């Protein structure tokens, strides 16, 4: 009996330790953003909130124009989500509710392409956008991944579960194909669409390598590129860096805490149910 109690206590203690390890860096990030750089390396460590937040923010804005960065990231990610969702949903619908020549070949090609490392496409893509004169544009950030096979796969799984009889009935009533898609099929796909949207948003919001390659001027920087540029300076002002990381992270955390279920489904790519 006592042994069981001890086991239980040990289990909770271990879980709490893991919990602290998981969450502490966030607290420290927040504390760091309110303190002067020098406070980050004091002995004993500074673990309390300071009063430097506004000053760090002003400095950060002077170095990278943080509000512009916030706008770029939001604009690019949201536009990407809307367009990619449209492209992938239409494709997924065709691949799940129609019989046609080449259907399986196309679907298998999409699936296989998910195994190809992104880096294998990086250089020709760069050359392509360079020849088109489209480097350093929003278009270059948004276009390449609009057809995202994993999103097609997710939406297809959900469309497969939709009763085909309803679609056929609507056809008999004379409804057009687009009308059937938008007013009969899509409305029941809201949870799947939400999860896929979150998945796509997170991917674009965090995208680093491609923006790093195509962006050349600071006014186009997205969060990952801007943050990364901060630690490239010879003298790093960690207070600024911490504010930057916080601005990039806190909205996502709030978004996550509010929409937990959808969010986890989206991040895991398990939009089903």
């Amino acid at each position: 009996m006592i042994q069981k109690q001890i086991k239980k206590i040990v289990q909770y203690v271990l879980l709490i330790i893991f919990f602290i390890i998981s969450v502490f860096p966030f607290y420290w990030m927040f504390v760091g953003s309110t303190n002067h750089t020098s406070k980050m390396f004091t002995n004993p460590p500074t673990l309390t909130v300071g009063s430097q937040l506004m000053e760090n923010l002003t400095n950060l804005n002077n170095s990278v124009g943080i509000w512009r960065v916030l706008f770029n990231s939001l604009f690019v990610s949201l536009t990407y989500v809307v367009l990619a969702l449209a492209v992938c949903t239409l494709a997924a619908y065709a691949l799940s509710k129609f019989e046609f020549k080449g259907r399986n070949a196309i679907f298998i090609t999409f699936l296989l392409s998910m195994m190809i490392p992104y880096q294998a496409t990086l250089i020709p893509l760069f050359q392509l956008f360079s020849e088109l004169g489209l480097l350093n544009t929003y278009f270059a950030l948004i276009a390449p991944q609009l057809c995202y096979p994993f999103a097609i796969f997710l939406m297809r799984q959900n469309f497969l579960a939709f009763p085909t009889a309803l679609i056929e009935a609507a056809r008999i009533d004379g409804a057009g194909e687009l009308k059937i898609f938008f007013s009969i099929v899509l409305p029941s796909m809201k949870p799947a669409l939400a999860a896929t949207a979150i998945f796509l948003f997170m991917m674009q919001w965090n995208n680093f390598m491609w923006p790093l390659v195509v962006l050349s001027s600071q006014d186009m920087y997205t969060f990952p590129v801007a943050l990364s540029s901060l630690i490239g300076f010879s003298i790093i002002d960690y207070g600024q860096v911490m504010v930057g990381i916080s601005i990039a992270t806190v909205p996502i955390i709030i978004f996550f805490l509010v929409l937990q279920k959808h969010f986890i489904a989206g991040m895991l790519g398990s939009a089903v149910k």
Partner: protein
Amino acid sequence: MSYSKWTPYLFLAPALILFLAFTIYPIFASFVLSFQTLDAGSYIFVGLDNYIRLLNDTVFGKAILNTIIILVVQVPIMLFLALVLANALNNQLLKLRGFFRVGFFLPAVTSLVAYSILFSIMLQDAGIINQFLGFFGIGPISWLSSSFWAKASIILAMTWRWTGYNMVIYLAAMQNIPNELYEAASLDGAGKLKQFLHITIPNLKPVILFTAIISTISTLQLFDEPYNLTNGGPADATMTLGLYIYNNGFRYFDFGYASAVAYVVVIMVAILSYFQLKVSGDQ
């Protein structure tokens, strides 16, 4: 009642056009590029030169070795931890389950760049992690300037970032294991550990395989962490294939050579995925 035979193609058209332009074309173009080199402003065909050059390139050798070390050490540790945590949280009697789950998952919502930078600050010589270890009389450890600890830093950071993510995947899969299996095992006198080893793990095998493949593919492309956390250093100790592709392509502008490195990654991904599927014997 039927639809026009063009309807599905129209629905597919935007995706197919984008896919051909931005995925299929670049995949073939980089394959061709890997047999070319820039000579007096234009690309000329040089056969296997780029690949032969790879064989004698010590930095490339280091990049492969580092990537494999990180892969072989980090993925099993992370997946094991994720399994153990998921198993603990799967207990209905555990209090604060939701609280723990959210906490463990939280690192997975940070961007790769943001957490890499955060760890690069925490892991400095006078940083918070060394100060904490100092309380226990450990260290200070030169996390970012020793070639051993720099790899350890990347492994540590990645484990922090991804364990909760994998845990949630396992947790979801554990809900599908019928309770009767555990009840029957309990009646037979099997303890918790035995149940974990003989019921939970075998039932999760496909999911474990799935997470192992996903983690392997992403580790082979590792870029954000070495770029921001260690910048490949010290002395290429954390140079990875992803970072080496970037450096060759966009620091030295040697597109042909960078493409050859990228194709080595393509081949490694193909072989490892095939191997992992084969070992599992399911598909």
